[in-house]
C-alpha cells in the first residue's frame, strides 16, 4: 500500500541530504526528505571538524577535489543567504622535518591543480610570527587563506529550513527498510509505511552503501571510520586563529587544532576503523592520542579547559572517493555516497550537481517564487547593547537568560522550537541556539530547557528526549 508519492525522495537529513533538498526545492516538483532520527544533522554532520577545507588535500581529478573547491567557493554567498555562522579564518598545514618538504610542496601543487587560490609556503619562523603558539619543531607551513570554519549544525539546519520553506516535506523518525524498483520509479518501504518516488537520492551517510545495495548489483562498501575530538572552553578559543593541520598521513589529515565559529578550541580527530556504524563512543586511548598529537603542532594547549569530548563516524568508501551520480544499473536512483571529509565543504556543490541531474531527469522547471533567503537565529550574545535592549523590549523572553554560560535567552529557545522544522529534543535546541554548549554543559539549564520544550511542544516532561525516542531524560513523575 503506497501512502504517499513524490517526484523526488532524499534519504538522509545530514548536510548532503539537506543541501540536495534545498537545491531541488528550486524546481517545480514534489519533494520529501526521510530521516531516521528526530531531527536533521543527527549523524556525521553533527560530529566533525567543522572545517570548510580550502581544497589542496584531495588528489586532482577526484570528485573530492572538484566538489571541495566548488563548495568552498559557494560558502560566502550561502552564509549570507541562509545566515549561518561561517568564517574564512584560513588554514595552515605544518611540516615538521626538512625531509618532508617535498610532501608539503606536493600539497601546494595539488592545491594549484585543484584551483585553490592564494596558497603560499612560508618558513617556520614566519608561521610562528603569524601564529605564535605553533611549536618550535615546525620547519615550514602551507598557508591557505580560503580555508574556513563553519557551524555544521547551523549550515545543515539552515539548508533544511530553507528547503522546507520552499515546499520540501520532511519525515522524521523514518527509517528506510527496503527499496523496490517498480515500473516508473521506486517504492521505499519504511517503518512509517510505503512511499513511491520517481527519483531517489541516497544521502544516507555511513548507511549509504546499504541503501545503494538495495537497488544495485554494483555493490558499495563503507567502512565506518571513527574520530574522537576534544572541545575546549571559550577561554581557550584564541589559542590559535588559523585552522592548524599536520601534513596528512595514511589515515587522513592528522590531528587539527582549530578555533570554532562558536569561539571554542577544537582538537581532533583520531581515525580508527570500527565495525559498528553507530559506534560514536570515545575511548580513553583515542582521547589521549588527541592530546598527545595536538601538542606536536601547538604549544601550551590548556587541556584542563576541556568542556566535552565527542566522536563522529565518517563514511569511508572502498574506492576512496565520493560516489556521486546516477547509479548505472538503477535509473532514476542517485548516489551521494561515501561522503567523508571534505564532505561538509563539498555538500553545497554536491547539492547543486545532483539537483540538476534529478530535475533534468524529471524534466522539472525552476520555480519562479523560490526564496533563497532564510532568517538565521537571533544570537543575543552577539548583539550590541542597543540591539539587545530593543529585542527585549519587543519580546521580554529575550531578557530571560536560560543558559548562563552561553547567554542564551528563553526567547531564542522558544524560536528554535517554534520555527520551521523546529527542535523537538534537547539536542535539537542545543544545535540550533547553543544552549547547554558552554562550560557547565547544561548543568544549570537542563531542567528549564525541558520545561520550555514541554510547554511549547506539548510533549509531557517524562517524554522529553535528549535526541530520538529511547533517550528520555526522566524516568517518572514522583
Amino acid at each position, binding site marked *: 500500500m503506497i501512502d504517499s508519492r513524490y517526484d523526488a525522495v532524499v534519504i538522509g537529513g545530514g548536510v548532503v541530504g539537506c543541501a540536495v533538498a534545498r537545491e531541488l526545492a528550486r524546481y517545480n516538483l514534489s519533494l520529501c526528505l526521510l530521516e531516521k532520527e528526530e531531527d536533521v544533522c543527527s549523524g556525521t554532520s553533527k560530529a566533525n571538524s567543522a572545517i570548510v577545507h580550502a581544497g589542496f588535500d584531495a588528489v586532482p581529478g577526484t570528485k573530492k577535489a572538484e566538489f571541495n573547491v566548488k563548495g568552498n567557493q559557494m560558502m560566502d554567498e550561502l552564509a549570507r543567504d541562509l545566515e549561518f555562522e561561517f568564517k574564512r579564518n584560513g588554514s595552515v598545514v605544518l611540516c615538521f622535518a626538512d625531509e618532508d618538504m617535498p610532501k608539503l610542496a606536493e600539497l601546494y601543487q595539488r592545491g594549484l591543480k585543484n584551483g585553490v587560490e592564494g596558497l603560499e609556503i612560508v618558513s617556520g619562523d614566519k608561521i610562528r610570527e603569524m601564529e605564535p603558539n605553533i611549536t618550535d619543531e615546525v620547519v615550514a607551513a602551507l598557508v591557505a587563506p580560503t580555508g574556513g570554519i563553519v557551524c555544521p549544525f547551523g549550515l545543515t539546519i539552515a539548508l533544511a529550513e530553507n528547503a522546507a520553506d520552499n515546499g520540501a516535506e520532511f519525515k522524521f523518525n523514518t527509517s528506510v527498510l527496503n527499496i523496490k524498483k517498480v515500473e516508473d520509479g521506486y517504492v521505499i518501504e519504511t517503518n512509517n509505511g510505503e512511499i513511491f518516488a520517481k527519483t531517489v537520492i541516497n544521502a544516507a551517510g555511513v548507511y549509504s552503501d546499504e541503501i545503494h545495495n538495495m537497488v544495485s548489483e554494483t555493490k558499495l562498501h563503507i567502512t565506518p571510520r571513527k574520530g574522537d575530538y576534544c572541545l575546549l572552553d571559550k577561554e581557550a578559543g584564541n589559542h590559535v586563529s588559523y585552522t592548524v593541520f599536520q601534513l596528512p598521513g595514511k589515515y587522513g589529515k592528522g590531528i587539527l587544532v582549530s578555533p570554532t565559529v562558536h569561539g571554542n578550541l577544537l582538537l581532533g580527530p583520531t581515525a580508527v576503523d570500527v565495525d559498528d556504524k553507530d559506534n*560514536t563512543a570515545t575511548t580513553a586511548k583515542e582521547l589521549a592520542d588527541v592530546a598527545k598529537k595536538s601538542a606536536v603542532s601547538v604549544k601550551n594547549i590548556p587541556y584542563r579547559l576541556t*568542556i*566535552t569530548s565527542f566522536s563522529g563516524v565518517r563514511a569511508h568508501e572502498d574506492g576512496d572517493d565520493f560516489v556521486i551520480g546516477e547509479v548505472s544499473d538503477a535509473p532514476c536512483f542517485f548516489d551521494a555516497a561515501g561522503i567523508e571529509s571534505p564532505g561538509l565543504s563539498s555538500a553545497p556543490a554536491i547539492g547543486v550537481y545532483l539537483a540538476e541531474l534529478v530535475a533534468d531527469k524529471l524534466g522539472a522547471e525552476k520555480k519562479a517564487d523560490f526564496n533563497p533567503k532564510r532568517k538565521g537565529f537571533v544570537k543575543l550574545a552577539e548583539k550590541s547593547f542597543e540591539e539587545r535592549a530593543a529585542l527585549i523590549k519587543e519580546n521580554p523572553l529575550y531578557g530571560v537568560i536560560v543558559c548562563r554560560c552561553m547567554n542564551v535567552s528563553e526567547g531564542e529557545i522558544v524560536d528554535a522550537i517554534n520555527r520551521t522544522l523546529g527542535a523537538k529534543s534537547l539536542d535539537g535546541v542545543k544545535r540550533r541556539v547553543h544552549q547547554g554548549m558552554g562550560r557547565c*554543559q547544561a548543568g544549570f539549564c*537542563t531542567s528549564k530547557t525541558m520545561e520550555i520544550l514541554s510547554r511549547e511542544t506539548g510533549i509531557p*516532561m517524562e517524554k522529553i528526549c*535528549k535526541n530520538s525516542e529511547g*533517550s528520555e531524560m526522566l*524516568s517518572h513523575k514522583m
Partner: protein
Amino acid sequence: MKQYDIVVIGGGPAGLAAAISAKKAGVSDIMILERDATLGGILNQCIHNGFGLHTFKEELTGPEYAARFIEQAKEMEIPYKLGAMVLSVSPEKVITYMNKEEGLVQISAKAIILAMGCRERPRGALNIPGFRPAGIYSAGTAQRLMNIEGYSVGKEVVILGSGDIGLIMARRMTLEGANVKVVAELMPYSGGLKRNIVQCLNDFNIPLKLSHTVVGIDGEKRITGVTIAEVDANRQPIPGTEVHYDCDTLLLSCGLIPENELTREIGVEMNRVTSGPNVDDKLQTGVEGVFACGNVLHVHDLVDHVSAEAALAGENAAAYVLSGTTSEKTHKITLKAENGVRYTVPQTIDVENMRDSVTVRFRVADIYHDRSIAVYYGDKKVMSRKKRVLAPGEMEQVQLKKDSFKDYPDITEITIRTEEA
C-alpha cells in the same frame, strides 16, 4: 546611570548574608542582583537537613535556612531584583545586567560584593570515554529535577565522585525507591563530609569504592551501563580490574568550580588552587571596593561558614563605602600554604588595618592522621594545634589575633603547614 553604594551579585546564602550585614553596618543603598526566579540559591533544592548547626544552633533544611535570611532581608527592606542576569562588570564597577522587565540595564556601584557561587564539574571536563547517551547528570542537576520539578531521573544508579551532593543524592534516590549500586571515587579518600558518608552511604549499605573511576559508558540512547575500574597511584585505570554495572543513570559529583567568569573580567588576580580571586583579610579582591565571599571565593562544605564569611564581606564593604578610602598606612603580610596545606583564604593580611582577629580557612591535600597544624610568623612558630584526622573534604580554620602580631613588627610572611605531631 543609577549608582548604588553596594551591589551584591548573587542572592544565594552568601549574597543574602553579605547584604544583611552591610545594611546592619549602616549602608542602606544596596541592590542584590539574582539571576534565578527566587532568592536563596542552591539551598532551595537542598531539602535535606543538617544546615544551621553553627549559625542557629539547630538543624534546618536548606529551604528553611535560606528562608531565615530571605525573611530578614525583606524585613530590612533590602532591595533585590530576580531574573536579573549580570552580563559584565568593569574595573570601574559598572555592572550590566538584563531582565525581562527592564531589558538591558547599566548601573554603577561604590562597592561590589561577588557572591555568584559555584557550578558542578561536568562529564566533559572529566573526559570520561564512551557514548553520550541520556541519563548522565551532574548530581545537582538531578537534585533540582527531583526536589524542585518533582521528577525522578532513574531507577538503577551509579554515582561517580563522592562530593557531598553525590552522597546526598545517593540517599535521596534510595529513599525514592531507586537502587544505588555503587559510589566510585577516583581519589583514595572521599571529597565529602564524614557525616554524609555515614548517613547517606553506610546507613543504606551503599558501597563506596575509593581509587575507582568510570572507564566506559554504554548505551547509545539512554545509558545502559558503566564500567568501573580501580586506579593506580597516578590515577590511571589498572587493566584487569574492570567491573560492569547495569544502570540507567550515572550521577557525577566530581567537584565544584567557583563561577568566576565575571571576576576575571574585572581583571582581579585569581588563585589557581581555589579558582577564586585572591583576597585580603577584608575579603577584598585586587580591585579596591570589590569583595568576594562564599563559594565564588572558595568552595565550602558548610553553608554556616559561607554565611559567616559573607557577613564579614558585607561589613567590610560597608566600611569601605562609609569611609570612602582605605587607610594609607599598611603592613601587608602574605600567607603561605605548604606541606599538606593546599591554600589559604585570605591570601594576605593587612596587620595595620585588620580587625581584632581574622579567620583563615584552608584545606589539606590528603588524609593525615595525628598531625598538627602549625602557624609560623616569619620563621617563628607561634601556634600548633594537634588534629587526630585531617581530610581534604573538611575545611579547616585558624584564628589569628591582631595582638599576636605586636611582637613581629617586621614579618612579611605567615606560613600555615601540617607537621608530624
